[in-house]
């Protein structure tokens, strides 16, 4: 069976890339042609109209497509999670200094930095300076929601107090360098690239803001899934084997070398290795920070789609005025995530991983998240665009 699968060159495409390049998909009888893409818009359109059978898709776009938000409505299903976490917030040395100066407490604490950002914003306003500008990758992106969730918790209104702009990941670093943005939230490897060039400092791993945040999905059209149930199962199985391979530390050098290829992710092997190990250089002076949760590829149950994640992302769309609050939409969003297909492919149910947040999210601020009560989540915040 020949399949065309689109991907964006990012570290969280690892399971897909390894499944194909290590022959794990071929072992399932799947002849996969990988197509490297340059924008989420392209991935979305090519998946929607059937030019791709499957895609490495940023999680909120799967929901937006299924609900018909901002674009044509095409129901999408996700039987496999390609990555949990993996994003980071990087700021310019100047903004880092300003936040450090304004910080009242440990700068590793996201609440301390969010409140410090609010003070920096107020100072700039008082001086009549331009608002700070932050880059993120797409209107319906985890990066957009992660930045907003963090800064709003400290009292910064992401629509009124700062500017959020969409930038393709490969342009983030250059935009920070030429001061078009003061910071950004993006996935690996771009934060590390900025640090290595000496133009940015990683302020937070998003895993410090949300302990568990669905990032990318293996996505297919609902219709395709219905028409190709057997192929889908084989595809998921190949991905599960790939994720196991990636998470085995003994294979990391091989995996990093494979991903570094120009037609795959195309950055330094060492940068990818650091990402997979969760050991990131956070500042140009060479300081490192470790977080085993930085990017989860299959570990800690990360590959099994959790509908609570869909509910959280839908809640952010409602909070920021991208989607109306509706019970039907919540149900439809959750239905995109298909743990049942994952279980069917891997034969049986997987016990929940120990040590994971009880609500499946583990946010640094606000009450525990209840995927059946979006209203309660929204009620917890003053800064919001709910109409």
């Amino acid at each position, binding site marked *: 069976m020949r399949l065309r699968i689109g991907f964006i060159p990012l570290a969280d495409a690892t399971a897909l890339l390894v499944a194909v390049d290590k022959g794990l998909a071929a072992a399932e009888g799947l002849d996969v042609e990988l197509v490297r893409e*340059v924008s989420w818009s392209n991935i979305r359109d090519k998946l929607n*109209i059937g*030019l791709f059978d499957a895609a490495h898709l940023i999680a909120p776009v799967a929901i937006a497509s299924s609900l018909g938000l901002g674009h*044509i409505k095409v129901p999408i299903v996700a039987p496999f999670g390609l990555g949990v976490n993996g994003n980071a917030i990087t700021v310019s040395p100047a903004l880092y200094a300003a936040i450090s100066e304004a910080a009242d407490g440990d700068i590793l604490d996201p609440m301390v930095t969010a409140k410090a950002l609010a003070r920096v914003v107020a100072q700039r306003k008082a001086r009549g300076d331009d608002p700070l500008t932050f880059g993120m990758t797409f209107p319906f992106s985890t990066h957009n929601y992660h930045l907003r969730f963090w800064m709003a918790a400290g009292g910064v209104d992401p629509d009124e107090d700062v500017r959020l702009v969409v930038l393709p990941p490969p342009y983030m670093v250059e935009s920070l360098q030429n001061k078009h943005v003061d910071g950004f939230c993006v996935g690996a490897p771009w934060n590390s690239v900025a640090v290595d060039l000496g133009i940015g400092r990683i302020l937070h791993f998003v895993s410090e803001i949300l302990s568990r945040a669905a990032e990318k999905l293996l996505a297919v059209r609902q219709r395709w899934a219905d028409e190709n149930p057997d192929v889908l199962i084989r595809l998921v199985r190949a991905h599960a084997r790939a994720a196991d391979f990636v998470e085995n530390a003994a294979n990391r050098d091989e995996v990093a070398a494979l991903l570094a290829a120009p037609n795959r992710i195309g950055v330094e092997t060492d940068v990818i290795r650091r990402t997979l190990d969760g050991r990131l250089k956070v500042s140009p002076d060479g300081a490192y920070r470790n977080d085993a949760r930085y990017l989860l590829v299959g570990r800690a149950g990360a590959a099994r789609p959790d509908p609570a994640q869909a509910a959280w992302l839908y809640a952010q769309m409602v909070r920021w005025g991208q989607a109306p609050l509706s019970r039907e939409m919540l149900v439809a969003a959750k239905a995109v995530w298909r743990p049942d297909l994952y279980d069917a492919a891997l034969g049986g149910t997987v016990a929940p991983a120990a040590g994971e947040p009880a609500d499946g999210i583990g946010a640094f601020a606000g009450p525990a998240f209840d995927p059946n009560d979006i209203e309660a989540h929204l009620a917890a915040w003053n800064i919001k665009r709910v109409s």
Partner: protein
Amino acid sequence: MQPSLKIVIVDANPIRAAILEGGLREAGYVNVTRIEDRTGLLARIYAIDPDVILIDLENPSRDELEQMFQVSRAVKRPIAMFVDQSDTASIEASVDAGVSAYIVGNLQKERIKSILDLTISRFNAFARLQSELDRAKSALEERKVIDRAKGILMKAKNLTEEQAYALLRKTAMNENKKIAEVAQSVITAAELFK
């Protein structure tokens, strides 16, 4: 035809953009702006305030354009995507051609359709030109390789040019290969025997 319709072409390929602009001008759309540089893209687009935006799909800046559909202070007037639910065929044709269209405001569907059809045909024409050019280039390369191999054979086996070519062709037929492939093997072998 209202000549005031403003069209922006966002394409990193200046030749293709020029071909498209020429086509649009021929069709009477005189208000066409090409943007090749991605710096400050949205600011430039807001300043031009176009009715239609055409962008090539190899352009990463496409995701930046999608931001214009969001509720934002920066938006001057509502922007709607041309591709509504009923236009699947148009989306397929444009994605296939490697271009995407966005409309600003409420333009008549027929007018957009003619612009999009023209854009798709120019993009396809460009792709054909490109592949013809690639083919011509590789034919030229092959010819150079064959000429070199002929020279090697003429010298080594004391053949005329016709005999050398006949030998290459016969070997290619026997081995079910292209003449250029056999010629390349001759060159490689000759390099090894140097």
